[in-house]
């Protein structure tokens, strides 16, 4: 029970570690951003899942409903999603600029390009 009962946490942890792993292990700048997004998504789950009460409803006062879900995590995560989207958009924009400047989006190619120019100059 206790292991499976916490399944939402398990999913959170798996997403978190997978996202972080992609960020660290991949050299492709786009893939890194995808990893970053997965990493951030795991946090959304971390906040939202515990806010849901089994049998709870939306927190609107009405007759016949006694059990409400916690609305605050949703509000927080709405903000966090906005932040995450902004980060992703900015990251992609920077990658576009990097591709314009270097003609590559692989980390080692970019570093090599700068090294060559540094050596050539």
């Amino acid at each position, binding site marked *: 029970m206790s292991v499976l009962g916490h399944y939402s946490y398990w999913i959170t942890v798996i997403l978190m570690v997978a996202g972080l792993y992609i960020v660290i292990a991949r050299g492709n700048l786009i893939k890194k951003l995808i990893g970053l997004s997965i990493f951030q998504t795991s*946090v959304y789950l971390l906040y939202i899942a515990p806010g849901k009460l089994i049998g709870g409803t939306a927190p609107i006062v009405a007759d016949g409903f006694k059990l409400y879900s916690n609305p605050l995590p949703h509000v927080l995560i709405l903000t966090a999603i906005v932040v995450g989207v902004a980060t992703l958009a900015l990251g992609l924009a920077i990658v576009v600029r990097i591709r314009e400047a270097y003609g590559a989006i692989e980390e080692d190619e970019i570093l090599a390009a700068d090294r060559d120019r540094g050596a050539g100059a």
Partner: protein
Amino acid sequence: MTLAHLPALEVVVPLLAAPLAVLLRRSSLAWAIATAACAFSFAVALLLASEVSAHGPISYHLGSWPPPWGIEYRVDALSAFVLVLVSGIGTLTALYAWRSIAAELPRDQIYLYYALHCLCVAGLLGMTITGDAFNLFVFMEIASLSSYVLIALGRDRRALVAAYQYLILGTIGATFYVIGVGLLYLSTGTLNMDDLAARLPQAASPRAVLAALAFITVGVSLKLALFPLHLWLPNAYAYAPSAVTAFLAATATKVSVYVLLRFYFGIFGLELVAESLPMREILLVLSLVAIVTASLVALWQADLKRLFAYSSVAQIGYITLGISMASRDGLTAAVVHLFNHGVTKGALFLLVGGIALRAGSAGLECARGLGRTMPLTSLGIVIAGLSLIGVPGTAGFVSKWYLVLGAIEAGRWWLVAFVVATSLIAVAYVWRFVEAAYLSAPGGRTPEPGETPATMLVPAWILVAACVGFGLQTSWTVGGAQRAAALLLGGAP
């Protein structure tokens, strides 16, 4: 009536100035708006600081929702101190940007710089003033996202890579922070900092709290560039536009240090931080390693911006060293160094920006013979450099004094020797500039670079004068830092 809303205006004014600057588009109007907004925030910060020192902490309820339900803005001895630093540096760099940014950016992008500058200032001020842990995350991301763009504005294409790396690491840091806050929320059901501090001791699962502590420590340490999480910093500082480097070096890492202080002492409490996990020991070791390695690396840099960037990593080590002592003198040293180093590094990067403007780059070989061609710029760097070393009569000395005093009180004599011995490395790297500027013949460039333009020199020299002023008359800085230290340690405010 308006006076009561000062804490909100402190943040809202620069926040609203940003879209206004975008709408107006004209670079001179954008500059005027950004400067005026920052100057307004600076004035409000000074007012708030004097109010706090006279009447104690101010609690402002956003939208009149009382905490812990609404978001609380809280100004106390510590946050007032940081507010003054951030808004003051923000104003000076906005003034400085008039010439500096005009030379570094295409005309049609200039208004964007000012908009982002306002956003960044608003974000950092918000991080400082807010009393809500999640609100802090939002402001942290406002400040971070705008600083990624600011760095990417640099002319060198490596600025893009630096901005990208900073974006990845900064986002990881912020996400770690928000995971930590989430765990705290799950344990206590509140996000208000004071409320958190009150409820944490009754938290159901101490292990979740410890995990939160670990996540927040790592996340904030990434932001404040604590060794070995500093790798984003040198490139970001080296390739960003000069005004951006100066602003970020003087404020961004300092606000993160402030957040660390808030969480360690204001929320988790010293018992938890010191006893359940060996946080103080970890921080101590990392600080020592940061000071030695970053100082030594700075010695070998061929570029003044990179040199001072590594020096920043080392100086942050001194701040965290003070935090790791967790004593009255140690925290005084940390807080006063947070301020003094902000002023010193701001001055240095502003002046280096002058060299970059006139000589085309900030390479050390461009500094040859500058003592004659750019006398005021060089003299300013020397004076601010002396403050970096910690020569008496400069701001840096005051920080070192309290650091050593704290080490003596803790009976750690080896730490005393360590602190004074490592400042010799600072002598060595500052003197690399001095010898280049005063003992080397100019590199034979034609035409010889002239003095930095006055509109850049004046803000820089205000900070240089502050380096000396806060070294000779310390009642405001040290007094504020001591009150802040007492506050953090739970004494009388």
